[in-house]
């Protein structure tokens, strides 16, 4: 689960990391009122879960009321894409904060290093820009040091890292404190990524987090009540919200071929094979292990609520999942829902013969059986027609 900038800053504040205070607003009127209270100059920042907001025009400084109104109007409702093609993300909220007097821009982060099975602290004196570009063009400017995940990380241990990164001498102690606190946020809030870019030094020589990018481990939300509430509010896609409610693992995509498979790996593989056959997947939906008939009805309800879907592929390899249960689910769903699109079904594995018999006996209209994954992908692409 990714936090918006302002949520991350609130988390920082709770752990004693200095960050500008401000207000969140979802209308131009509220944004202007916030700016008036905060004073000028102030920053108006798009709250979307993606980097590169500045470049996309999602961060503006307002010198007066007229500019605050103009910038808030331009940013709210804007569609922002990430540097790697993520999104688009529509801006529903802006964060209004007091303008900062910037003397230097640094970079600091604490991330989970999956390969090394440790936390990794990264610090650079070259902040305020794309850190991946810094890493590529001037790798020595980015200092990386592993943190032992089995014990607390102290400011004394952080000190040599900020020194090696070449941060200004007079702020090294304070920067080391901030780095240690970022590690503390990771450990106590179950964050797998905390990135501050830029971490600024103000004209008064204070070290302040001017941005916050925080990812919280979804598996740990049960022990962070406040964060779990934010997570529940964060889903704005109607299909994803419906799937969440029904306990299904669903990701919305842009295409017109609805997809249901069992198991995350098989489902990803199914999307790939459909794409190879020339189709455009509409979703990822993992029905999970041991799915019963009701789960299939739920899954079909979610998939068909996406109006772009023109055909649906069921790709089931039954292990723990029994194909007869899946077939019963398909028959039940056909009775309960008004299915207007063709279904292509491939059932293999546990009880596949019984499953195929159930489907044959029901003689559902517009249901097509295929024996192989590849054959099923080709068939569903043909039935779905061009995406438009």
């Amino acid at each position: 689960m990714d936090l918006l900038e302002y949520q991350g800053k609130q988390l920082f504040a709770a752990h004693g990391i200095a960050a500008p205070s401000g207000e969140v607003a979802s209308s131009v009127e509220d944004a202007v009122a916030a700016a008036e209270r905060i004073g000028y100059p102030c920053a108006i920042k798009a709250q979307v879960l993606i980097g590169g907001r500045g470049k996309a025009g999602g961060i503006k400084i307002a010198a007066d009321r007229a500019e605050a109104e103009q910038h808030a109007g331009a940013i709210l409702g804007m569609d922002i894409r990430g540097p790697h093609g993520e999104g688009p993300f529509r801006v529903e909220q802006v964060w209004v904060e007091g303008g900062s007097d910037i003397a230097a821009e640094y970079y600091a982060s604490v991330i989970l290093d999956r390969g090394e099975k440790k936390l990794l602290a990264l610090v650079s004196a070259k902040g305020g820009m794309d850190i991946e570009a810094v890493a590529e063009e001037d790798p020595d400017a980015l200092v990386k040091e592993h943190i032992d995940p089995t014990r607390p990380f102290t400011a004394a241990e952080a000190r040599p890292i900020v020194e090696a990164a070449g941060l200004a001498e007079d702020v090294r102690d304070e920067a080391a404190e901030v780095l240690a606190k970022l590690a503390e946020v990771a450990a106590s809030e179950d964050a797998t990524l905390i990135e501050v870019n830029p971490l600024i030094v103000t004209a008064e020589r204070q070290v302040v987090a001017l941005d916050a990018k925080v990812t919280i481990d979804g598996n740990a939300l049960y022990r962070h009540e406040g964060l779990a509430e934010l997570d529940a509010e964060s889903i704005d896609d109607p299909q994803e919200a419906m799937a969440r409610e029904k306990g299904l693992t669903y990701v919305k995509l842009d295409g017109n071929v609805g997809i249901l498979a069992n198991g995350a790996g098989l489902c990803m593989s199914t999307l790939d094979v459909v794409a190879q056959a020339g189709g455009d997947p509409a979703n990822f939906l993992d029905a999970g292990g041991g799915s019963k008939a009701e789960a299939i009805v739920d899954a079909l309800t979610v998939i068909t609520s996406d109006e772009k879907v023109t055909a649906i592929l069921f790709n089931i390899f039954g292990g723990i999942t029994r194909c007869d249960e899946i077939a019963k689910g398909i028959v039940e769903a056909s009775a309960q829902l008004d299915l207007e699109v063709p279904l292509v079904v491939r059932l293999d594995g546990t009880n596949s013969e019984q499953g195929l018999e159930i489907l044959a006996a029901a003689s559902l209209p517009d249901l097509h059986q295929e024996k192989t994954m590849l054959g099923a992908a080709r068939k569903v692409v043909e039935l779905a027609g061009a995406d438009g």
Partner: protein
Amino acid sequence: MSIVIDKETKLVVSGLTGREGSFHGLRNKAYGTHLAAGVTPGKGGQDVEGVPVFDSIREAVEREGANTSMIFVPARFAAPAIDEAIESGVETVIAITEGIPVLDMLKTYWKAKEAGVRLIGPNCPGVLSPGKANVGIIPAQFFDPGKIGVVSKSGTLTYQIGNELKQAGEGNSSIVGIGGDPIVGSDFIDILELYEADPETELIVMVGEIGGDAEERAAEFIAGEVTKPVVAYIAGFTAPPGKQMGHAGAIISGSSGTAQAKKEALEARGVRVGESPTETARIAVEVLRG
């Protein structure tokens, strides 16, 4: 031979008195696995269809000689259960549980390393050595004994490929599900090393997916340390960046963790990568038969 589990395996199941734990534990027993004991704190002295239940894993080790532990307890109690297994004296811990907080696993990972205990999973289907033992939830009917070692991040995808190998007349030395979480006890490299040393394994099929860099690291390892042929499959070419595709670890962050990058890393090291599970099985059979 086989890897991780075999006829010598004496299994203790944490969570044997639970619904899932008893279903799969007894299924493993029916397959021929030596199910030595179950563990549920407070239920010591009971039995599950004749299998003794103890209060602690250590007791199961001392009383029944258990050497392999399977963890089937709910996510929020699973990391302490794995820790208990690590400290109990077993050699191998196989954690099936899905949804364990990743920072808990980080600590548990290092505990296992320091104790010299082999940890497989979590969030994995377990290990099957056809004809010898089955620990976990892998449906054994899709696999025959044979010469191909399989190591995979995904369960159902493995069943799919295993079934195609079986239909082509080939079987497996072992099938190891390493799990799809960001932090797992054993990576591809750990299992590749075991297959390389296993005389029964002649070819290795490796099934990866988006997220992390375990496949890239495996490619390096294969180039330097593996003499047996390796055939790979990677799932998630169409996955959009920033979206978690089911498994907690299956996410492309920024420009790293893409299927394309993994495929290129493997191919650059001479590993053939199939376009689909079907093609992967076909290539494996073709390479095996020369």
